[in-house]
């Protein structure tokens, strides 16, 4: 029996965790993942980790926040938290999201209609801690009392005040990284209140005021990208070497001479991949090179710092870093004098550059930006390439990256391609703008601190894994190879973690890849199979 959580529990001063996640509470998975004792117990925190780090939430640690050295440090951060709330409510500091934030803070009817829309909450067996409303209501309470001085009024009306202390802010910090920012709950809310947005504002407060952010997103993420060019650490030279190697490798293996162009001024298209694809899913950038070449596109990649990695982790936690990276992307395109920027298969790149940064990219930085989905659709149906769909005659399902589909409304193009090229294409349920997040959204796919991967694959990704298995329920065995098409690097990283954890390749014959790979695999002029089923 789960213990019920009160809002005020977040400020409990003792060091204990608020809730415990028990495998038996989680929603069941279909066979063969439904055996008793599966999954095995979660990875426990070591005594050393418990000694060094703040571990006061749910038995998982994503952020590795060190324990405060003394009371003065606790006080300093608590005061910064208060000043951060004030800045979130100010035009100067937070014009970027002030109106959506105020609307979401002030008009929640506490009806809990949004709860069951959240895959994290539902998959956890409805643990109170993961309600979309739990962290929002706590934050609302703190803002009301400390930034708007409405605590007394609340007292008169019998509302419970959440105490603001070190326990509150350290728990809230970790809790702000238990939400994928997928906004499925916002779609469900009758008022239009956006708990995903509130979570992002909490993360932003921690980052922009306290200087707290996950290392993977900040130091090893946006800071590294602005300095070296990519969170992967790849410098321009290494990048070009890697891509040249891929060109050679694929030219040999599939018998199609591919050569990727670099820094071509005046090209029609500047394609910006997620550089992580080059390292983790090299078939994806290779497939784009093959398709652009075969379709005769006038295109280029950039080897400028700021122009070869489309990721923008600022979207997950920090407006300033978001803007800095988006501006660098646009500056690269302006310098190359291209007609348009085409996104790689990366969901948050789409959202960051195509919409969120739209109002930052003023003047000549406003270069047209196109989705990879429409770009690929145009190539596939241009008649310039011959296809043989029977080469893709295996079960395929499509994952809808939240940032491309729910947030940008790009639903149809990828489906038209799959219906044309994949005879055994089938939808997951629900899909399209009602999809469930893969569990890697909000930056999680690149975060693996302490035992967080365990949480991601067991809770955040559980609903999606269940959907994938259900989509293939007519061919469940490993003897039939099956393909989850996820046109987003971060989603693919999350699927890879999940499939490896659940051994889905071995048990069910499932692998995950992008959209461009399926297209190349169906090219009639390439005799060799492009998609490899080797683990």
């Amino acid at each position, binding site marked *: 029996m789960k213990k*019920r959580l009160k*809002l005020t529990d977040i400020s409990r001063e003792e060091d204990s965790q608020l809730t415990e996640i028990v495998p038996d509470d989680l929603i069941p998975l279909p066979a063969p993942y439904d055996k008793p004792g599966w999954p095995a117990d979660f990875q426990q925190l070591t005594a050393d980790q418990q000694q060094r780090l703040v571990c006061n939430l749910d038995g998982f640690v994503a952020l590795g926040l060190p324990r405060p050295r003394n009371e003065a440090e606790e006080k300093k951060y608590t005061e910064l938290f208060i000043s*951060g709330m004030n*800045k979130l409510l100010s*035009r*100067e*500091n937070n*014009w970027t*999201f*002030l*109106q959506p934030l*105020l*609307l979401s803070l*002030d*008009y929640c*009817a506490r*009806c*809990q*209609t*949004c*709860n069951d829309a959240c895959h994290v909450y539902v998959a956890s067996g409805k643990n109170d801690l993961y*309600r979309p409303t739990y962290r929002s209501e706590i934050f609302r309470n703190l803002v009301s009392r400390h930034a708007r001085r409405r605590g007394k009024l*609340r007292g008169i*009306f019998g*509302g419970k005040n959440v105490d603001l202390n070190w326990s509150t802010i350290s728990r809230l910090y970790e809790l702000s990284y238990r939400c994928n920012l997928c906004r499925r709950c*916002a*779609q469900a*809310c*009758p008022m*239009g*209140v*956006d708990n995903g947005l509130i979570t992002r504002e909490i993360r932003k407060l921690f980052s*922009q005021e*306290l*200087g707290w952010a996950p290392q993977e997103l*900040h*130091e090893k993420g946006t*800071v590294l990208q*602005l*300095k070296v060019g990519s969170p992967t650490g790849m410098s321009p030279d290494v990048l070009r070497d890697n891509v040249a190697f891929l060109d050679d490798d694929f030219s040999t293996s599939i018998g199609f001479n591919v050569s990727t162009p670099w820094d071509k001024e005046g090209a029609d298209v500047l394609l910006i991949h997620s550089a992580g694809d080059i390292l983790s899913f090299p078939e994806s950038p290779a497939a784009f090179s093959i398709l652009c070449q075969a379709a005769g596109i006038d295109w280029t990649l950039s080897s400028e710092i700021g122009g070869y990695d489309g990721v923008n982790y600022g979207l997950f936690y920090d407006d*300033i870093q978001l803007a*800095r990276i988006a501006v660098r992307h646009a500056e690269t395109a302006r310098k190359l004098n291209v007609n348009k920027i085409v996104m790689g298969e990366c969901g948050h790149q789409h959202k960051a550059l195509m*919409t*969120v940064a*739209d*109002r*930052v990219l*003023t003047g000549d930085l406003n270069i*047209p930006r*196109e*989705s990879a*989905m*429409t770009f690929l659709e145009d190539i596939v149906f241009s008649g310039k390439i011959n296809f043989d769909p029977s080469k893709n005659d295996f079960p395929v399902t499509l994952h809808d990256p939240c940032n491309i*589909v729910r947030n*940008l*409304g*790009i*639903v*149809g193009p990828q489906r038209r391609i799959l219906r044309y090229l994949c005879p055994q294409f089938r939808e997951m349920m629900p899909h399209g*703008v009602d999809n469930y997040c893969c569990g890697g959204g909000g930056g999680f796919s690149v975060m693996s601190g302490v035992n967080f991967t365990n949480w991601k694959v067991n809770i955040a990704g559980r609903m999606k894994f269940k959907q994938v298995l259900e989509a293939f329920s007519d061919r469940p065995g490993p003897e039939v190879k099956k393909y989850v098409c996820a046109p987003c690097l971060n989603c693919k990283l999350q699927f890879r973690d999940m499939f490896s954890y659940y051994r889905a390749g071995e048990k069910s014959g499932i692998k995950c890849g992008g959209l461009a790979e399926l297209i190349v695999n169906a090219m009639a002029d390439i005799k060799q199979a492009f998609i490899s089923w080797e683990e």
Partner: protein
Amino acid sequence: MISGIFWPVFVFSAIALFVIGTAYRVLSLSRQPVHLRWELSPIPHVKGRGSYGGSDFEEFEWWKGPRRRSLLAPLAYMAVEIFLLRSVFKNNKRLWPFSLGMHLGVYLIILTAPLYVAVAIILAGGMPSSDTNSLREVTYVLGVTGYLLGISGVLGLLVLRSVVNDLRSFTSASGYFNLAFLGAVFLSGINACLSLPDFTGTVGQYAKDLITLDPTISIPFLLSLHVIISILFLIYLPWTNMSHFIAKYFTYHSVRWNDAPRDAKMDTELRRLMGRPVSWSAGHVQADGDRSWIEIATEKATDEKTP
């Protein structure tokens, strides 16, 4: 029994206060600075695509094509949302019948107001009361239905919020108070309606006396009670989160469905906003209270260790 000039003063100043409160809400929400785009599908005004959540971005080189917009689709979407509570139906079946009952109750009672005004105008024009019979019959049916639906909705919501754990832990005293206050409006209404021999005739006459500023105005106690509770509720409404009927316009049109690319007016505002100094404290922001948002956003970050 209250009579005389009190009534017009009370009723018209209450309406004025309601209008002021509502206008204040509207202005404070509409005067917020332009924000970064944060749309969310489905956006029904995207013609031909809105129904399944598609956007202009589904078009190859979307910036070259016309932005085809539907005027009707968002209206139809909002009508279903407002009158049938689509989101609650889809996502919270347990709450839906009661929430729907309460909202329909409110809508029906609102609908009776112009009908009473029509009765009042007819009476003020010197026509006999019998000329308003059919109008009053319709008004009576709408009113009784509204009160009954409203009462059952409010009662259901009060019970749900008191007994269901999920709802109870998120409902504050003011949440219960707001529901009870609205319940009192419905309850006093049905009480007056069923107790007074000619309820609609009395209200019609009262409305006529109000608009003609008749100093001899006088109404039965039960109706006075209903009017006073309703009017106090009206004054209170804009200052609570029940004013979501205003906010909802902005959450949908200014945020969820706001897919407008920049225009010249927006550019001017954006330049002004980005030119203002920023004071975030974290090292990587490099704000000193003097440097502007745009200066900060167009430079590189430096290394900074998180604790």
